[in-house]
């Protein structure tokens, strides 16, 4: 298929269709309106269904129902809308329902603004809703990768019977790049889900539920979920860039900031400074082992985020004092330039006067 020029949001929508998803329930919010817009145009063409819910709360409960019935289903929103969905996400995690949720992050807290942000890292990676649960979190940094990861997200959701989030700052949703879709899954080719509530004629009935009144049972359920989240460690993904043979400064960044870091690496090279990049692709589970290895190959670590410092807490825990870890963050929709990252890296290697 010829490459198309797509916005991140459009590629995410098309990827869901290529993953065999035929259901979208959601509610519009900038800067991800192009996802529901795209799905509302495309799903009827492929025999699917688009529903604009009355709210994000309603949408997340529609996801619960459709997933419980064994369907591939997905939604997208941006930060404030994702917060509204969190009750449903907790219920889906509790009921072990596979679902794909895309968060095209904007500046917060509260209504914030409509410009790009990465300040929902805690919400995405530490649970977000109530209860002891985690969702698998994927963070693309190109439009092509957004498309690829959305397709993978559906498979991972089914594999772990768990919500999977794909997070991108607003720019990942809004930027345009050439995309191709290498894989197409037809809904009828998807594996049966024996746990789904599809009508119990001829078999024991299935129950989709997150209510456990018996404390022993609820404790067991929680530890079973915990073991499942631990087993997700097999899915860690990351990219090492310019780290072979070690580096002066290792930048740790994901999404758009990782793109900016790559330009910074080129600019620093001209100044004789070697910067490497560690780009986590899974934010939960975090590629901890690989980060530790890359960090030990550097003199110092610089975490750069579009937040006041969220991922940096995980990086500090992993590096565990073995290397200095500095932080550079911009928020509110302000974005650092490659020159800013070079300047921050230079500060870390400067010999004190």
């Amino acid at each position, binding site marked *: 298929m*010829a*490459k*198309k*020029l*797509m*916005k991140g949001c*459009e590629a995410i929508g*098309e990827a869901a269709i290529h993953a065999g998803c035929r259901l979208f329930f959601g509610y519009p919010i*900038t*800067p991800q309106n*192009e996802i529901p817009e*795209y799905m509302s*145009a495309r799903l009827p063409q492929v025999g699917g269904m688009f529903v604009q819910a009355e709210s994000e709360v309603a949408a997340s409960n529609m996801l619960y129902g459709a997933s419980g019935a064994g369907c591939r289903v997905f939604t997208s929103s941006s930060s404030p809308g994702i917060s509204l969905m969190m009750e449903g996400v907790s219920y889906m995690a509790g009921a072990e329902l596979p679902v794909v949720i895309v968060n095209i992050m904007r500046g917060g807290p509260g209504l914030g*603004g*409509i*410009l*790009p942000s990465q300040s929902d890292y805690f919400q995405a990676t530490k649970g977000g809703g109530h209860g002891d649960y985690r969702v698998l979190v994927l963070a693309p940094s190109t439009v092509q990768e957004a498309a690829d990861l959305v397709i993978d997200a559906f498979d991972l959701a089914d594999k772990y019977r768990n919500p999977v989030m794909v997070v991108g700052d*607003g*720019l990942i949703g*809004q*930027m*345009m*790049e*050439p995309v191709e879709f290498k894989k197409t899954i037809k809904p009828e080719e998807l594996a049966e889900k024996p746990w789904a509530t599809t009508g119990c004629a001829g078999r024991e009935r299935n129950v989709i539920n997150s209510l456990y009144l018996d404390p022993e049972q609820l404790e067991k359920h929680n530890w079973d979920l915990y073991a499942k989240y631990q087993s997700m460690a097999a899915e860690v993904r990351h990219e090492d860039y310019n780290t072979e043979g070690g580096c002066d400064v290792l930048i740790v960044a994901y999404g*758009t900031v990782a*793109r*900016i870091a*790559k*330009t910074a690496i*080129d*600019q620093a090279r001209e100044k004789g400074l070697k910067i490497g990049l560690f780009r986590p692709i899974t934010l939960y589970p975090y590629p901890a082992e690989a980060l530790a290895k890359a960090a030990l190959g550097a003199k110092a670590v610089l975490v750069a985020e579009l937040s006041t410092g969220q991922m940096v807490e995980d990086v500090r825990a992993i590096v565990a004092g073995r290397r200095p870890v500095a932080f550079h963050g911009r928020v509110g*929709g*302000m*974005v*650092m*330039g*490659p*020159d*800013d990252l070079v300047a921050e890296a230079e500060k870390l290697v400067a010999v004190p006067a």
Partner: protein
Amino acid sequence: MQSAVRVQMDAMTKPNGRAGACEVLTAPIVILVGHFGSGKSEIAINLALGFAARGDDVSLVDLDVVKPYFRCRAAREEVEAKGIHLIVPDGDRFYADLPIIVPEVKGVLTRSLGAHGRVIVDAGGDDTGARALGSLMDAIDPERSEMLFVVNTRRPFAEDQAALVAMLRDIETAARRRVTGLVANTHLIEETTPEVVREGFAAALTLAATTGIPVRFCAVLKRMVGALTGTDVPILSIERYLLPPEAPGMTGRRRRFAGV
């Protein structure tokens, strides 16, 4: 001095020795419409800068009420540095994606522009974006304006002729004005090849044959200007201004207006 200015002007307006888009567009008001993401904003900025380089008095109207980032206003510093008057909501509404049409828009579209006055109007994508334009159409004299439909056949929902014709007609209905010209703008940004440019130009010619609307010019990335041979279609050589934040030129200076 004069000749230096002339050489610089020719470089902008006569790429590859061909007629430039700014030479063939004679109407004082140029309105850009088209599919969502077809390239209207980048073309609007390049046209505005091209006219300004010819010494015209240029106003650029950012009427994009559809997309939240990568709008004309993101190139505010570059266009204002060339004396172009950017018309856009002010204050914090500059950053909003609300359907705001500032009163100045109607003013600039109705007043006498003089011999060298130019107005470039960048409408939002699809018929949705053209609706804002429709609310202004009574103020725009058809004799003094052109409405150009920008075509990138590598964009979703713009891949086949039927879809292009349908969108063109929907936009005309929403804008309450006939399209007067087509702009061939098929590209894949950095992955654009000469074949992609030629394929897009051929598709624009087919659309022209179907609709009877002429191709007014072909917009081509600067490095691809040589791709179109065997035609004397005017060219708009495109320099990218709406760049992602990792572009080497995106320093702290640009951040604030970068739409990012």
